[in-house]
């Protein structure tokens, strides 16, 4: 037991940091600890990602079979920790301006991040459940963080009730799977259900588990909470929810499908096709009518989840690595967009109406150009990186014979391009005086420009991430 503790050092590091920071802040009652809490947490998260990079990996499950540590998990953990650090830094200004800054904000985010690391590394349905609860409980609190705002409270309550329902579905599914296979450990379940006809109880349990994960991933038909929660939650929390949990839940989705139910892929392929196709259509059509940029990005994230799931629906190593590449590039584009949205100000108040962006290019041509690149990339316009990752999942889908799904994806991405391009139109051509007058802090500008540079460089070599995703995909498929 004690020798396998080296596999959870990054998690322990964050938990110990968070607990000691909590104690210090409560006891000292000082202003300094509150004022720097976000940035200090960000630094410690970066340190933790450095620890992950130097960590031992093991081909077998560790911690009594509850945990795993391999190329797949370290890839996602580094990504999660780095992006969370960036978002904590980005949210600092917003919290200060809106008088929301208390030391609990980054600490709750840290706990959520630990939960996501547990999700990514889980090798047992029990640790999976614990990880999901840890990350979503923190997110419920963060969503209703601005407690004097009715919308934020509503978002938190909605998210909490629906999240509790989906946790119930997950537990029910787990109990059915345990009932048929006699184990909750991924590798034991995998071995038990391999090469044999599947049973009814197992299939029902599997569908329940997949539905619950699809809920957390905001995939159709479990997406209803996403627009309301994204709109109501304070913008830094929206940024956090749109970027980081998507990675963790995506990793877990791939892991559950390939590591647990990999032997009965013919049973879940159609479910995935349904989730993926539906999400793409809902994402594309739902966003058209939105004028609130947060709500629009919520629909956009539903659509992107659909495109990413195409990779999983194709049930091939190629599709899996496409899925990972898609999540990676999506998170980079989103963090760039949110670096901008967190600074959309009018007379010192943050706004989210897209029509206020009119003629923004006259005022800040550089920022507008970077944002336009990101939006083009989100729309999947060649040759940007957003197009390349779409190409990966489409190729995988066509190669595994799901041509109709690829067709739905192509149509959805054409429709989806409309609302990204509308923002570009508003920024450059709309005849109206611009209302935005905020100045972006230097580091925020850096994040925005780095993200848009990354998607331009990514067209050439995908930021060198492709071999990593191949290794990650390899460690999932036996």
């Amino acid at each position, binding site marked *: 037991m004690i020798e396998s503790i080296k596999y959870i050092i990054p998690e322990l590091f964050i938990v110990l940091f968070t607990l000691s920071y909590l104690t210090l802040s409560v006891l000292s009652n000082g202003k300094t600890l509150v004022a720097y809490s976000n940035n200090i947490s960000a630094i410690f998260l970066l340190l933790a990602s450095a620890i992950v990079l130097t960590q031992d990996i093991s081909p077998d499950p560790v911690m009594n079979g509850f945990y795993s540590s391999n190329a797949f998990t370290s890839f996602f953990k580094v990504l999660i920790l780095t992006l969370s650090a960036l978002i904590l830094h980005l949210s600092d200004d917003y919290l200060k301006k809106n008088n929301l800054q208390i030391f609990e904000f980054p600490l709750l985010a840290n706990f959520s991040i630990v939960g996501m690391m547990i999700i990514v590394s889980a090798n047992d349905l029990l640790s999976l459940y*614990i990880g999901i609860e*840890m990350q979503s409980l923190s997110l419920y*609190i963060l969503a209703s963080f601005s407690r004097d705002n009715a919308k934020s409270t509503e978002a938190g309550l909605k998210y909490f009730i629906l999240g509790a329902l989906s946790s119930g579905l997950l537990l029910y599914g787990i109990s059915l799977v345990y009932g048929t296979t006699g184990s909750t450990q991924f590798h034991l379940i995998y071995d038990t259900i391999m090469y044999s006809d599947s049973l009814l109880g197992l299939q029902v349990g599997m569908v329940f588990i997949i539905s619950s994960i699809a809920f957390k991933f905001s995939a159709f038909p479990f997406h209803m909470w996403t627009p309301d929660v994204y709109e109501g939650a304070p913008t830094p929390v929206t940024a956090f929810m749109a970027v980081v949990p998507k990675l963790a839940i995506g990793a877990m989705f791939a892991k559950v499908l390939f590591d647990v139910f990999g032997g009965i892929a013919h049973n879940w392929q159609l479910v995935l096709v349904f989730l993926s196709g539906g999400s793409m259509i809902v994402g594309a059509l739902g966003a058209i009518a939105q004028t609130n940029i947060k709500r629009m990005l919520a629909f956009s994230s539903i659509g992107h989840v659909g495109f990413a799931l195409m990779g999983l629906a194709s049930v091939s190593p190629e599709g899996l690595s496409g899925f990972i590449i898609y999540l990676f590039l999506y998170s980079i584009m989103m963090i760039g967009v949110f670096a901008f949205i967190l600074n959309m100000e009018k007379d010192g108040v943050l706004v989210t109406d897209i029509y206020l962006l009119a003629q923004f290019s006259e005022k800040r041509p550089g920022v507008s150009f970077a944002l336009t690149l990101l939006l083009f990339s989100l729309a999947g316009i060649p040759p940007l990186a957003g197009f390349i990752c779409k190409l990966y999942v489409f190729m995988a889908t066509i190669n595994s014979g799901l041509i109709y799904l690829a067709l739905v994806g192509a149509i959805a991405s054409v429709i989806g391009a409309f609302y990204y391009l509308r923002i570009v139109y508003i920024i450059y051509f709309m005849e109206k005086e611009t209302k935005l007058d905020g100045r972006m802090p230097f580091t925020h500008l850096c994040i925005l420009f780095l993200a848009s540079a990354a998607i331009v460089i990514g067209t050439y070599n995908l930021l060198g991430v492709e071999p990593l995703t191949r290794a990650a995909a390899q460690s999932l498929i036996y």
Partner: protein
Amino acid sequence: MVQLYFFYFFSGITVLSAIFVIFANNPVHSVLWLITCFFGVAGFFILLGAEFLALILMIVYVGALAVLFLFVVMMLNISFANLRTGIVQYLPFGLFIGMLILAELLLALVPWEFKDAAFSNSGSPLNLSDSNSVALGKVIYTDYFFIFQAAGIILLIAMIGSIVLTLRKRPNVKRQNVIEQIYRSPNNSIEVIDIKPGEGI
């Protein structure tokens, strides 16, 4: 044989008190009947040899949850007469849900299939002569250490969350400061005013 009589005894208590929960007019009585219902269910657990679950049911459900319900019922000014108004309207849907749950319960009678390997997977690493609590105590800090600690963190998050969302700083509240009270002296708290006869202050 004795077990059978106890089974009927506990089932009678559980079913009757569950019916009274629904039909009691006073919500406080409903909660009290609910507690009786929990007692009956705890009896079932004892009969099944799961004494730890019975204890947990007593401590968590009766000790904490039911008392919490009582507090909610008594402290919040909810008009239960208003809650009952739409009952005719909701009755068909409620019956539908009830039938659905009944059908799901009947599904339990369908023979359950499982993989042959399920037996060897689940295994039985525990000493069968141990009581429930001993058996749990043996694994919870060893095999399940990681899960146990993670669950502890979840409870901490819930605590932080309830404080973050409900604690309000009130600057005008007067608090008792014991040290200040002890060091209070007549010099700085009593003022002698010389009042002339026939006049006020």
